[in-house]
């Protein structure tokens, strides 16, 4: 039994090492991908490439942040890409009906909040499994977008706004969506790692029962997480619409898997309670850089998908396999 200062410091370092292990592996992978890119194409690491990488990853990366918080609590949101599609469709439909663009954008955000609230209430209040609920709303929201918009493609958004989808922030090589992602990442990181709320998320993920007994309002927190996720996805939908300067009902179809994969590749445990925002940011950087490298090598997009998909699968299997086995065993032991 010791309570000495030295031990505490030593303990702190040990904990840090434990937490950082996956993240440091990601740093190495990132460097590896950068070297790979530089070998394949001369002058790979230039600011313009950084800009395009950010532009490509923007919406997916932004949606990964609230999803990280949801996965930390042991839940999931598979409706993110459909939410993105629906809010883009709402924005396009209203704009084509003559609404001012700002009002159309605001309406899209409101739709995001409502869509998220539906997920949240069904998961937290009604108590349905989030995977089932959000697979349901994945189809539902995409279906609504289809009814709303198909077969039209809405264009003609004000050039002043669509500009920001394709040019960097003046004086830099940073895409607007990259800046939004980084700002949101900082906010999400602080919430997750330094506030009582973030600690609550971790506890909910590790041991929901204990969270309740510690006075953590589990249901309320979960509902709000889904609402925030809905709003952020709507925001991503707006960004995507502006970037493409057009929107059709199927915008972003299938992106949910990329978003989930980003989060898990970032070292966030699918069982909840473990993970860092730093990991998710690194995961975004790695995937973005890899895709950029493959694009410059003129690799077919289909092959790109296979490469990045394979990489994701491997990296999701490695950190989660040991834990999965342990959990399954625990659960078996706890049965009856």
């Amino acid at each position, binding site marked *: 039994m*010791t*309570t000495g200062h030295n031990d505490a410091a030593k303990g702190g370092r040990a904990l840090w090492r434990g937490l950082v292990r996956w993240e440091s592996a990601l740093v190495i992978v990132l460097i590896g991908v950068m070297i790979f890119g530089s070998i394949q194409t001369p002058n790979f690491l230039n600011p313009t490439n950084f800009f395009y990488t950010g532009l490509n990853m923007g919406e997916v990366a932004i949606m990964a942040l609230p999803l990280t918080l949801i996965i930390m609590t042991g839940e999931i949101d598979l409706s993110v890409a459909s939410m993105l599609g629906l809010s883009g469709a709402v924005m396009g439909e209203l704009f084509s009906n003559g609404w001012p663009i700002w009002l159309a954008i605001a309406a899209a955000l409101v739709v995001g909040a409502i869509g998220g609230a539906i997920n949240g209430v069904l998961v937290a209040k009604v108590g349905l499994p989030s995977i089932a609920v959000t697979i349901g709303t994945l189809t539902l929201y995409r279906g609504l977008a289809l009814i709303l918009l198909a077969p039209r493609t809405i264009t003609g958004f004000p050039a002043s706004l669509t500009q920001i989808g394709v040019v960097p922030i003046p004086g830099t090589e940073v895409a607007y969506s990259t800046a939004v992602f980084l700002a949101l990442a900082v906010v999400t990181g602080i919430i997750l790692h330094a506030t009582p709320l973030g600690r609550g998320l971790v506890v909910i993920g590790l041991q929901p029962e*204990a969270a*309740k007994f510690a*006075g953590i309002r589990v249901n309320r927190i979960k509902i709000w997480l889904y609402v925030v996720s809905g709003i952020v996805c709507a925001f991503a939908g707006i960004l995507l619409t502006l970037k493409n300067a057009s929107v059709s009902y199927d915008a972003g179809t299938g992106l949910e898997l990329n978003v989930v994969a980003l989060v898990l590749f970032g070292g966030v445990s699918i069982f909840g309670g473990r993970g860092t925002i730093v990991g998710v940011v690194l995961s975004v950087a790695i995937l973005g850089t890899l895709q950029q490298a493959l694009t410059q090598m003129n690799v077919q997009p289909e092959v790109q998908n296979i490469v990045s998909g394979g990489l994701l699968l491997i990296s999701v299997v490695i950190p989660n396999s040991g834990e999965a086995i342990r959990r399954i065993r625990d659960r078996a032991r706890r049965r*009856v």
Partner: protein
Amino acid sequence: MIRDVSKSFGAVMAVQGVSFPLYAGEAHALLGENGAGKSTLVKILAGVYGADGGGLLIDGEPVAFKGPAASRAAGVSVIYQEPTLFPDLSVAENIFMGRQPLRVGRRIDRAAMNREATDVFKRLGVELDPARVARGLSVADQQIVEIAKALSFNARVLVMDEPTAALTNVEVDRLFEVIRTLRTHGAAVLFISHRLEEAFESCQRVTIMRDGRSIRTAPIEEVTIDDVIRSMVGHDLDNLFPKTVIEPGEVVLEVEHLTRVGVFDDISFNVRRGEIVALAGLVGAGRSEVARAIFGIDKRTSGTVQVHGAELPNGNPLAAMSAGVALVPEDRRQQGLVMDMSIDRNVALASLGRLSRFGLIRRSSERDLATTWAGRLQLKFSRMVDTVSTLSGGNQQKVVLGKWLARKPSLLIIDEPTRGIDVGTKAEVHRILDELVTQGLAVLMISSELPEVLGMADRVLVLREGRITAEFTRAQADEDSVMRAATGQPPAVAA
């Protein structure tokens, strides 16, 4: 026969030169504090761990277990505190898992299987329907199924690791009956328990372990409970139930007509400053449920809960906490602690608001708070950042206590304060409670251990089937009267 068994983990000798004999037809109690090495020894017997030194002899033949299957084949069966049955299979299927009697065409012969299971139950003297599914069986019945399974393997050595921890008194009696039957059939039983009275009641021989060594083995008639405790802790224990009776102050908790339909009904009582009120009764009488409803984990159907005269909103633990209520729940591992989180974060978990500035948790304050309470409660740990799962049961309980005491509550609800923790820490927890109460804390204690209830409580309320059936003062309460009220028998007529 266990001879000179040793097992070390890294530099820690968990078990060191332990030897004792197990005789056929005899129940042998293995006693010791948490961390004394009992569980390690059990795992060696079960074949989960290999011994580093020494060995096991069965009928004089040295045996080496290369795994649980080998141990089982040699006739050793281990029954754990929490049995592991397949919930969706029938009782008989669980018993004959992997070696079901077959009919033509390799189909399972259900009739034969159920018949054989019934035979085994008959030998044990219990009644259980072999065809029912395991899901929903009480812990006690699950243990019976495990015992039946062991018996069907012709186990000659039956190891029971704290089988009674989750049982009611009636169930414990039935278990002892089963053990007796097993003995008459010539089995050797190794019985591990924290409840010393049980060892004396059901065993013929006792071995006491401390710090990984076997201190003493003796026939049970030759030792007293005091001897055993002395050998277990290594010194005299001043008092397991230190109790200071003081004049209680104003009412802190006032519960009126509290009802949760189907669970408990019309519960009214109060708890005052400076007193411990115990809720006694059988497991399932609704005691923990009352506590949960007061704290707001479950919603009440009707009735009121007032703390310091102000009514608590329904189903809102956070409001109860702000009103000064703390709940140390029944299930430490699921409800009280986040097992995979560090000690300091667990201690700080209920005080995060106070430890934050500008909405950010101050790590240093968090660490300080944990250090303060670890010191005050004499927590034994190696590092603050270790997960609580590395601590012994008693120390885990101290972490839960620290977490709530750090909030300076005026009412502490404590559900099974010393379940599954060793004698030494038990006395410590009692001393802490006593100290807090003399300082003016109001305590509502739920306990299934009658000595604890009688030793610590100022007043005893007895619940039976969701209703308060009796109230005793400290002076009135005795084992007999409380048990009668708990089981619904009429009070004994005074002679």
